[in-house]
């Protein structure tokens, strides 16, 4: 999909790449992590909440576009959604459990954890918020998410537990 999105540059093209009709950019994963680390240096723990809140907003925004463009809903949507984010290099879904009261997502190759380096705490706050935002749009559920395992911490995968709070 990425190869299809990025034709061989000629130098004459407009500086715009569109995906699902919306402008997207190609950003080095390390650049995102540089931004996160810079904000963490400035704000400490506040940065975790900031990236989490930003993730909620981003997840809701993306899911709205995907729901508008794709025909799938519910579980079928989530399957397609997982494949989509694998194809654009964000993560690889290992396991996803959306049926229980407490939902769980396990991923590998988180672009944040992979680039972050070693950490004694989970680092994928943006993704945790992103899942909350997506589930809010897809299932109209008010959830909160904690990352219980993170590969940056040495865990075998990143695990996110989502639970209802309203």
């Amino acid at each position: 999909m990425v190869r299809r999105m990025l034709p061989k540059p000629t130098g004459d093209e407009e500086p715009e790449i569109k995906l699902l009709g919306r402008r997207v950019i190609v950003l080095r994963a390390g650049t995102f992590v540089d931004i996160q680390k810079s904000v963490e240096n400035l704000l400490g723990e506040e940065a975790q909440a900031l990236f989490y809140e930003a993730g909620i907003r981003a997840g809701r925004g993306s899911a709205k576009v995907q729901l508008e463009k794709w025909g799938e809903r519910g579980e079928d949507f989530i399957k397609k959604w997982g494949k989509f984010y694998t194809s654009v290099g964000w993560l690889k879904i290992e396991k996803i459990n959306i049926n229980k009261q407490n939902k769980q997502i396990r991923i590998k190759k988180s672009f944040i954890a992979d680039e972050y380096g070693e950490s004694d705490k989970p680092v994928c706050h943006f993704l945790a918020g992103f899942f909350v935002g997506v589930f809010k749009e897809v299932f109209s559920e008010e959830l909160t998410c904690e990352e219980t395992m993170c590969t940056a911490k040495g865990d075998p995968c990143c695990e996110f537990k989502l639970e209802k709070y309203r």
Partner: protein
Amino acid sequence: MLNQLFGPSIHLLILDHFLENPEKLMNLREIARATEKNPGSISRVLPRLIKAGLIKQIKIGKATHIYKLNTENEVVQLIAEFTEKYKNLKSKQEKQPGNGEENAPQTNRR
């Protein structure tokens, strides 16, 4: 108050809410509702306020906690005194003719 003066910051938003309700015991969801944030955001910043001794964490179940302003902490007492004096100053400034909104601190609540 602190969030308006020094923020915007989720730490200050939480602290403000506890300062306005110094005797109230609150769980994570109640704090989230009052500050209009997701509980996940609150759980990410609350440990720092607890570690600093500003908020007390009280265990009420196997994995359930409630939280309260640590009114015995001298720093909390100083902050409470400051916010009270600041409120009085602000209301005095607002009552002065020609010293209305234009002199009020920027409000930037997140």
